[in-house]
């Protein structure tokens, strides 16, 4: 330690000691502090760590317990339950409200997700009206209106005024929303930054009245506070309009709300969207397909990837009388044959009572279940966009030479069915000398942040695109006139955070992504090669006209031939070559 370093440090320590003198209890501590300073302290030896003491020495019962500040009893009085709303108010970055720009996008997205899900549940072709109005420099009012089934009056306060409340969490099927947090969190953020409640207008049908609610969240209790609840005139037959005022920043370009809405239209070709951004002309995205996507069905969990603790719990709680029945009723794709095979391997009687299994029985059963051959989960819980629709959407959005799409068959990670589909557009107006654009979608929702943390990006990077006639530098996306649109549909999309920005790196998911990418890559490469061959053929044909005369000239010069002879050479040679070309083709 140098003179200088020490000097400065001592000076500071002195300051702090002076501060302390002001406090009542400082004297004793100060003395201790001084003692500690002047006396070198013996410590853990880096070079030769002390060998562990033989036997188990008693834990050091500190000689300083006299200074104890609180007992277990005192501490116990402070223990309290924490409301989930309070938790997320403090941790709102977890929900995508890190900064005002992202907050705007997150709030719009949560409302749009809810609207599209509601229409899907009700079997209605969605028609949305999204509006963003600037109220002050950093204050905006967003409203999202749908033609969905509406919400019954009694549910409105809880849906918008309580976190972790909703219909989707316990349902295993493909939906945009998952946890019953999103839209109430958006409202809570608005309330926190502007003091304004969420306003909801909803009507369940032409014969029902429209209701107007103003709702806030009582964060201490995680309960709704209703500020207004009245009937309203509304010239809409059925649907919901949600309005939130919030602190926000609106920007255009990449990762903007505009961008999000355009991608949403691309991923939901059956939806019509009117979008009025702040201080600009409104946009209209008409419906590209007039048919609803197949309705995703709810399913039971698949045994692959179910965890030991989960299985134990399930066997405790099941109403089934036998292990066989429990397995068949509570899981999908477990047939009698599977039950027989599984119980035999695990040395369990199929008709044993589930509650009677010992922990080691369950452990064996769990191990066997992971290795038995099972059908993939039912596909009808998923609703992919489909290859046709992806190609139609890409063709409409981009001027490309070549458009292709692959929808993989459903697969499963940790018991959750999922399905990967990828669209590819190549050539045309797409810039050839930049990194490719990558659109990531999960359950038809565009993902705009944390690209580098996402399994989709990882899968694209893991493919050697140079094998498919693209160029690619280590660790970077490929370069070339290509756009990839990658959609993962799942009953439970494993996001890396609550703000739904990136998909976790499950090997099963990455594997499916790679298979789809490589299939598209092979087809793209054969397209590119075919195009090159065609161009080469045309070029070679023109060679005959271009270069044969030069052979004539050279021969005349070297052999001092007459002009007539030169012409004869050119004519004969052209005939010879064209004849052999015809044979070749």
């Amino acid at each position, binding site marked *: 330690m140098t003179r200088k370093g020490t000097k400065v440090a001592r000076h500071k320590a002195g300051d702090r000691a002076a501060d302390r003198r002001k406090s009542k209890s400082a004297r004793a501590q100060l003395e201790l502090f001084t003692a500690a300073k002047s006396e070198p302290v013996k410590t853990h030896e880096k070079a030769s760590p002390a060998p562990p003491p033989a036997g188990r020495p008693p834990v050091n019962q500190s000689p300083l317990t006299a200074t104890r500040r609180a007992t277990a009893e005192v501490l116990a009085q402070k223990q309290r339950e924490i409301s989930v709303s309070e938790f997320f108010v403090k941790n709102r970055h977890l929900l995508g409200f890190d900064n005002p720009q992202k907050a705007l996008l997150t709030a719009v997205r949560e409302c749009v997700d809810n609207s599209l899900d509601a229409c899907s549940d009700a079997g209605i072709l969605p028609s949305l009206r999204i509006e963003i109005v600037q109220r002050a420099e950093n204050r905006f009012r967003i409203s999202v209106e749908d033609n969905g089934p509406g919400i019954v009056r009694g549910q409105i306060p809880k849906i918008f005024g309580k976190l972790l409340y909703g219909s989707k969490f316990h349902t295993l099927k493909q939906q945009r929303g998952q946890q019953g947090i999103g839209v109430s969190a958006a409202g809570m953020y608005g309330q926190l930054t502007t003091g304004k409640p969420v306003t909801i207008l909803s009507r369940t049908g032409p014969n029902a009245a429209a209701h107007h609610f103003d709702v806030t969240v009582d964060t201490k209790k995680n309960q709704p506070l209703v500020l207004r609840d009245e009937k309203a005139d509304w010239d809409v037959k059925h649907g919901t309009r949600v309005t939130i005022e919030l602190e926000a920043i609106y920007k255009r370009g990449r990762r903007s709300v505009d961008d999000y809405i355009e991608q949403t239209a691309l991923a939901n070709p059956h939806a019509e969207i009117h979008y009025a951004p702040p201080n600009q002309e409104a946009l209209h995205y008409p419906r590209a397909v007039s048919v609803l996507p197949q309705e995703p069905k709810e399913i039971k969990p698949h045994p692959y990837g179910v965890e030991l603790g989960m299985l134990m719990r399930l066997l405790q709680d099941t109403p089934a009388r036998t292990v066989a029945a429990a397995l068949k009723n509570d899981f999908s794709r477990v047939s009698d044959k599977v039950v027989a095979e599984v119980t035999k391997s695990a040395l369990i009687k199929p008709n044993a009572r589930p509650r009677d299994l010992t922990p080691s029985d369950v452990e064996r059963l769990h191990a066997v279940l992971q290795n038995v051959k099972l059908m993939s989960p039912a596909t009808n819980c998923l609703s992919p966009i489909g290859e046709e629709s992806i190609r139609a959407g890409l063709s409409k959005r981009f001027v490309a030479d070549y458009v292709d799409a692959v929808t993989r068959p459903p697969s499963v990670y940790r018991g959750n069915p999922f399905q990967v589909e990828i669209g590819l557009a190549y050539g045309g107006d797409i810039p050839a000398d930049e990194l490719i654009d990558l659109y990531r979608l999960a359950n038809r929702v565009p993902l705009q942040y944390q690209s580098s943390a996402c399994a989709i990006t990882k899968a694209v990077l893991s493919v050697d695109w140079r094998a498919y006639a693209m160029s690619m530098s280590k660790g970077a996306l490929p370069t070339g006139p290509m756009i990839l649109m990658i959609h993962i549909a799942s009953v439970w999309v494993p996001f890396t955070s609550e703000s739904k920005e990136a998909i976790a790196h499950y090997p099963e998911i990455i594997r499916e992504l790679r298979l789809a990418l490589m299939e598209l890559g092979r087809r793209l490469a054969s397209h590119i090669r075919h195009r090159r061959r065609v161009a080469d053929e045309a070029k070679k044909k023109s060679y005959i006209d271009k*270069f044969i005369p030069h052979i004539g000239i050279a021969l005349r010069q*070297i052999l001092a031939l007459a002009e007539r002879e030169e012409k004869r050479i050119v004519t004969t040679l052209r005939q010879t070559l064209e004849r052999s070309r015809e044979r070749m083709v």
Partner: protein
Amino acid sequence: MKEGVLSKGVGSQASVVRQITSSVSEIHKKIVGGRKPSMRFPLRSLSNVRYSPKKGHFEMVGKTKERTLTVSTVKTFAQTLRMVALSKELIETDDFATKRDAYYQTKNWDEARCDDQVESDTIMDDIESFYGLNKEQLGFRPDEHGGLVAGRLIVLDQEQGTGRSLEVDCTRFGSGAYGIPSAVEHLGFKTRAKFILAIETGGMFERLNYHRFWDGADCILVSMAGVPTRAVRRFIRRLADEKKLPVYVFVDCDPYGIGNIYRTLKVGSGNNAHLNAFFCVPQARFLGVTPQDIIDYKLPTHPLKDVDIKRAKDALKNDPFFRHHKEWTRSLEQLLKMGVRAEQQAFAKFNLNYAMNSYLPAKLAHPEKFLP
């Protein structure tokens, strides 16, 4: 016409013209007969090369490729024939074209023009190997030349135009020297020197020339200035062949001096094996600086650079020449073990003329000890 200086056999101007005419007549006949003509070339790649200890250079094994006139090859065929026509014209008008000149000449060939000099150079290489002649015999010249000569040599040349003979006396340049032209096929030699000393650096050459080292030692000094150009290699080769002179090479003791300068001079290069018969100097022997000299003379050294180490290891592993000669294998291994290199100018540490007055005489007393 310079027939006077040139030999009448293969490679004389008349015989080159005959070769061209007869090969092109063949092509002409085939075309007129409605058949597709073809040309056969030796393969110019390392897979077609081996080191011939007897001939003392890399030579081709004999693999060939045939190029038939098809739609795919018609462009190259046309370009090749036009380049042959240019060659014939050059020989007949007793002119020459540098490789760059030839590239510009192709600009007159409309669609058949070359887009860069690499393209026209490749065509020239094709023709060279097709006829088994070197570029200079075909009227072409490299753009690079260089190389200076001083000492006991009279170069026989003639005045262009008048055809008058010229004798260039390389003892009469004072502190200057004779600059080797880029084509040397037409030169003749008169000398009574005992050997040729080929020197890597201009600095060492100047010192030896300034002090008339060639006078006492009775030799011819050639400055290579780095890796010798075709002209320098051909000059030394022709001089050594015609006058039966031994060639001693004096370069830096490092993998570049040994592996690039000396090896290229002596056995040619792997990827131009079709030319090595003309351009290598099999009679060359390595005077120094050897790794052992570094020890014996306690020379000041510099550490081997990574690229040096890589080069030496490559030579030991892949180069058929070094692999063939155990003395070289040992020396290169010694060098790698020492981990240092030394320059021929390092002798200047002792005194400026130490190399001239002490080192070279000591070495030249025992040419039998030179490395092969």
